[in-house]
């Protein structure tokens, strides 16, 4: 918010009397958002915490929790002790920032200049020159307050001739349902002259705490030490006296509070979608024409992305038929790309699946999940790397069969055989971990590549207590064991259960008379007096 950078979209605020900055402070927004997502009851006391210098500190507190004594800045452990029935969850700053941006975008209904300050849980609107559309500043604030209240949000709203004052009033003076309005024609006429308006502003700001000035902690501590807890006494201090102690920041902030110093605000940029479209005078149909349509759209799109230095991980191809019906198809990608060849291959058999009806007169392509990408250097040896070939294969198969269907086995560092591997959608894996290969001389008990899930029960005859079985009976077949090695004994993951009697399992590698190589386990140890259950867990190749 206080960025000093020059930007084409920066609004330079002059000392114009008709500036009408609205700040909407939503202190409970984050906890409200988390509660909606997790389904907490609305009135439940709740708080969000975040790590600050390796301590868990409350970052946002619901109204009922605040009434019960929790406050922002409290240690989580203390809060839990104080109010054990409250719900606690980690604070997600990114989610809050996203929501505030959406709120600011929503506020475009009032003015095209709006932005957010996630650190303060606040969004703002510059309503100067636009408030008359709502019937004046007071009406705008009332409308804003009503709509927020209807959405279940309690906003602290203030309007002032400059951002500093609006911020201070919203965060430290305004109450939900009672917007403060210190700007606009009504205010101007009631307060008379310019100096009268300034006096009214000072009178409104004086009782507020100095924290409303948006200062560093060190300066705040210094002011508290000096007994300057409120803005009023601080306004009485001389500039030089403050600068010599606190540096320029304090005086800047004080000037910004009264609008004596410009402040650059960064409104939300208006997004430009990555969209290309074509329309045809004559409706097109037939696979060749449709294929050409898709190719053209992709060419347009990759050109657009190249110009704007973007890459996408989602491509949507859409079409409208003469009868007005629309259809579209999405393609997900493992890696961000704008390679036309790849996109064309992915969409190769789309043309056959489009039901063109009486013909298509309009088609579009939209790129999603965009990321910034520099132009690639030309590859001199034209051989793509094996991993990118595999990625491409996975993309193709996933595009055809569905991303859930193409899966990949991943090693998991666990002793329990059924937990030691896991199958995940291949497209979702960014960097698949490698399976450890045993060295040529190393001792390790091999396991089958694929395990039977669930294992098959079998009957076995073995010498007690822990010898390998000699005879197996599985699905009506009898096997005589020729060679055996083991046991490999795997204990239970004891910490996950309160039952002390979780049983261990012995595994044996067996080779039968007829050459089958089996991985057989016995659940339960007879030497500890446990019931033994034999099972077949896999075949060796």
């Amino acid at each position, binding site marked *: 918010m206080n960025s000093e950078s020059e930007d084409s979209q920066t609004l330079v605020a002059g000392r114009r009397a008709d500036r009408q900055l609205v700040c909407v402070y939503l202190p409970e927004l984050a906890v409200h958002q988390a509660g909606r997502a997790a389904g907490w009851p609305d009135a439940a006391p709740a708080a969000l*915490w975040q790590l600050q210098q390796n301590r*868990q500190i409350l970052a946002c507190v619901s109204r009922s929790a605040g009434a019960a004594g929790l406050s922002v800045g409290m*240690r*989580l*452990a203390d809060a*839990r*002790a104080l109010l*054990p029935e409250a719900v*606690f969850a980690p604070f997600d700053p990114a989610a809050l920032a996203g929501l505030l941006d959406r709120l600011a975008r929503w506020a475009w209904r009032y003015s095209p200049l709006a932005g957010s300050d996630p650190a303060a849980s606040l969004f703002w609107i510059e309503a100067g020159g636009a408030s008359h559309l709502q019937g004046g500043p007071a009406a705008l604030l009332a409308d804003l307050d009503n709509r927020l209240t209807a959405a279940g949000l309690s906003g602290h709203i203030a309007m002032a001739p400059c951002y500093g004052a609006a911020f201070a009033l919203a965060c430290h003076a305004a109450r939900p349902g009672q917007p403060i309005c210190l700007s606009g024609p009504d205010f101007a006429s009631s307060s008379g002259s310019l100096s009268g308006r300034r006096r009214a502003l000072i009178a409104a700001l004086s009782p507020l*705490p*100095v*924290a409303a000035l948006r200062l560093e902690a060190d300066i*705040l*501590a*210094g002011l*508290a*030490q*000096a*007994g*300057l*807890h*409120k803005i009023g*006494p601080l306004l009485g*201090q*001389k500039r*030089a*006296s403050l600068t*010599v*102690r*606190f*540096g320029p920041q304090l005086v800047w902030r004080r000037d910004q509070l009264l609008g004596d110093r410009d402040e650059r605000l960064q409104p939300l940029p208006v997004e430009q979608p990555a969209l290309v479209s074509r329309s045809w005078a004559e409706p097109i149909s037939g696979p060749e024409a449709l294929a050409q349509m898709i190719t053209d759209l992709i060419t347009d799109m990759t050109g657009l992305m190249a110009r704007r230095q973007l890459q996408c991980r989602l491509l949507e191809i859409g079409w409208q038929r003469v009868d007005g019906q629309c259809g579209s198809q999405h393609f997900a990608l493992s890696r961000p790309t704008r390679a036309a060849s790849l996109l064309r291959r992915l969409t190769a058999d789309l043309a056959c699946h489009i039901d063109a009806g009486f013909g298509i007169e309009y088609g579009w392509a939209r790129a999603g999940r965009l990321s910034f990408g520099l132009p690639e250097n030309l590859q001199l040896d034209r051989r793509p790397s094996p991993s990118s070939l595999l990625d491409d294969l996975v993309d193709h198969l996933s595009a055809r069969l569905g991303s859930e269907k193409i899966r990949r086995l991943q090693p*998991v*560092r*666990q*002793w329990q055989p059924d937990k030691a591997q896991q199958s995940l959608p291949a497209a979702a894996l960014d960097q698949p971990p490698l399976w450890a290969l045993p060295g040529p*001389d*190393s*001792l*390790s*008990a091999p396991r089958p590549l694929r395990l039977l899930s669930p294992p098959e029960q079998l009957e076995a005859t073995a*010498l*007690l207590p822990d010898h390998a079985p000699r005879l197996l009976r599985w699905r009506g077949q009898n096997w005589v064991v020729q060679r055996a*090695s*083991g*046991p*490999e*004994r*795997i*204990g239970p*993951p*004891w*910490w*996950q*259960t*309160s*039952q*002390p009697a979780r049983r*261990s399992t012995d*595994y044996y*590698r067996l080779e039968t008379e007829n050459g089958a190589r089996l991985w057989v386990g016995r659940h339960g140890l007879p030497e500890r007096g446990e019931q033994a259950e034999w099972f077949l867990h896999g075949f060796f190749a």
Partner: protein
Amino acid sequence: MTDLPDYLPRAALGCISNFSFLRGASHPHEMVDEAARLGWKQIAIADLGSCAGLVRAWQASRTEQISLICGAVIPVQASPGLPPLHLAVYVASLTGWQSLCRLLSALNMAQPGRASNPALAMPGDFARLRADTQLILHSPPDPDTGFFDLAKRLTGVTEAPLHIGACLLRDGCDEARLARLADFSHRLAVPFVALAGALYHQPARRPLADALTCIRQGVQLDNAGLVLSRNAERALISPAEMARRWQGWPEALQAADALAEKCCFQLDEIRYHYPEEITSGGRSPQEELEWQVWQGARQRWPDGLPPQVTAYIEKELALIAKLQFAPYFLTVFDIVRFARSRRILCQGRGSAANSAVCYCLGITSVDPARFEPLFERFVSEARGEPPDIDVDFEHERREEVIQYIYSKYGRHRAGLAAAVITYRSRSALVELAKAFGLSRDVQQALSAQVWGREKGAADNLILAAAGLDTSDPALQNLLKLVRQLRGFPRHLSQHSGGFVIARDRLDHLCVIRPAAMDGRSIIEWDKDDLDALGLLKVDVLALGMLSCLRRCFDLLARHYHLALGLASVPPEDRAVYDMLCRAESVGVFQVESRAQMAMLPRLQPRCFHDLVVQVAIVRPGPIQGDMVHPYLRRRAGLERVDYPSDALRGVLERTLGVPLFQEQAMRIAIVGAGFSGSEADQLRRAMASFRKDGRIHEFHDRMIEGMVERGYDRDFASRCFRQIEGFGTYGFPESHAASFALLVYISAYLKCHHPDVFICALLNAQPMGFYGPAQLVAEAKRAGIEVRPVDVSHSFQDCTLEPTDHARHALRLGFRQVKGLSAGEAGRIAASRGTEGYESLADIVRRADISIGALEALGRADGFTSLGLDRRTALWELRRLRRQKSHDLPLFAHAERRHASLYPPQAEVGLPATQPGEAVMLDYQATSLSLKAHPMRLLAEFVEADRWQLCSAAQQVRDGQRLRLIGLVAGRQRPGTAKGTVFVTLEDDAGSLNVIVWPKLVARDRRALLGAHIMGVVGRVQKQDGVLHLIAEKLYNGDHYLGRLQPADGVARPPLKSRDFH
């Protein structure tokens, strides 16, 4: 169906104990006991890089039918980059033991660092080992050529016989591994031995072993994966099972037994020799001792020795000569003589005070003519072990004494005993909670609910208090492990001052390692281990009160021109006893605790021996033995003084027929139950030892039946036994109580007659005792002493005395009270002040080389009033100076000095005035006390509005009245004897109040009890013998009142700190 084993093994090799920190999961005695139970004849315990657990294992092995093989495992780095392999060194004979100790010591000393990381060795380090040690190279899970090469290299390097050893892992590759190792052993022509390889004594300890692994590796159980053990197979198994599992390899079992047979070394073969350089003029130690004793006697009694003292001395000297303990006395004498030459106060404590010889040598200060010493308690022929002389030194100057010992005997001959730091409830809980992956706030909530060393703390109650689900299996597992882990050794630290001094190399006796502090080395055994082996130890202990007394004597000499010393304080002063009878004992040594304070008005001490009783009676022994009330009744004349028998009359006469002292309890066992002297001592030791085993019951039955047989009341007998139980760990022998009583008397004397001096010295000796600076300053004010605030123009680092118009000096608080001001900077402020003083803040910055931050600390403490600057103005000005200084450039600095007139101080707009409550809070924040007002006084109107009364209101009400009282928490105490009862001290401006919180309430209102700075108590007043208590019925946290002291928008900070004792 079991196969018949070919060969039944006898020795379990390759076991570790929990002294392989965070690896072994059983105590040494658990390993030994379980091995004996399973039928092993020998067990070899070799911990990783350490012999610290061996004495405990050896002690356990002596009571069982099993013998211990001593050794250690040393990690060997075969070549850089490869993981180290474990080489076990087992000791065959005394010389082997010496080489092992020497090797380990050298490795330890060469690799200073954390004690938990065992030192790495190179193959060449084993070159010194001879055939008196046996080596086993432990196979890793995957023995490769690196393993083979190292084994080959070791056979070339050392003469000691090398073996290759392996244990069964049940990982599915056991057969392949054994075959490969057998091949290696064949190719190297070294024997292949079967190891038991136990990491814990029973399979049920596998969870703990896994949890320890997680703690060691800093991972959580859920994602530790393959770091954890695969199964519970590393437990001890029976010889028959071992034989079955090694069925194909009888020669490996036989090789193990052959190795074990050669290792017949036992720890009691270690012989200790006293140092020699303690005599002068060619005298023998005994001659030297006698000469020194008689010389000292003449100084102690310049007017001639009382005849009974002469008799004592002669008797003692004869016994010392017979037992050849003269060098020991001379060693201690030498240390004490050094301390005295440096004017370091010292005094012997413990049973040494029973000795007239020690008094003559100046080791102890209690005149044997003043009470009857019992030399047998100190040195007994029957016990045949060295006497134990503990000497207290000023805690701030003990380091000088320690360095003297190192410089005199050298670090290769003198070492400090170790202290085994064990897991307490809280540390076990915190570390295990991490391993279980509990979030940090749950960890914090849990640990906040555990009180210090609380036993049995880890139960559902705590979970509930921390707001956790008690039925969660993970938490139940956690609690189970906390109970197991409690008491496990965690690391070795240094003992408070037990020195072992050897005639030859210390590292031939035991393993030494560098201490955390530079210039110190410690040996791996703690005091119990040393006792068990009969190694001589000189205790160089630190006592804060001695530092305080030295300061008192210095201040008295400087300000009152009085030369006092420990021995020259006027005895038996009436006013002193009057003061103690009124329980005005804040700051007085030993009798300032709440329990002692409650006892003083009841006991009404009137002479020195009463103080001895007073010190001894508020101890676990008499309390557990229910001896306190009978004694008090008899003393008050409410009960007839009689004796259980005529035989015991001699023992109990001095304490009105009630046993109060440790030696009396021992005498009862001897006289009353027919124990021999050494049996009685064994009984006491059995009680004291860390391991309360079955033998206690044996003693219990013997003692009670013995006493009943001899005609004593059964009830009296069992009370005596309970008392011995209490004495076991915390007993005070009479002589020790006498040593302490002397300090009680001296400190009470100083407090009574020179309170200004006493409180000043006490403040300078902080932290010490039960009371913080705030209470001590309040005490000074009560005594009518003017207390002056910290000030830049008047204060020094320490608190000082300043002359006044009247007899008493005023107490000037020192810079030491100011938080954030280092002693060095405080010193520079005082040193640069000179006689002319400072004019302004800029003047200080210019003249004293001091940071603005330090001045700000002083500013927060309101220390510039003499410059006409209040706290606010000073800090406001300092902020300007800080900014100027940080923007200083050398060139400009010069210009600025020259043109100082160009920067005139600006006319300032006034800052808002400080509110009184705010000022007090700021005082507390900066100095932990306020001379302006007591916070509770300022809060009075607010708390009274809520129907609370300030806590001192309890003084005015009748016994049994119910009140709602509130006060500042000055301290919490939970004595070990009180069975979970917590004592809380509340204070307000008028005084303090003791609140008793019974265990039930502790559990219920735990949060308020442990968390509140201001506590409200609903309870009933109890007045008895002039002692006032409040029995709490409900506790409230009153911290919200603190907000009233602060400006509306000020930053709230936790303000006040209480002193909590466990």
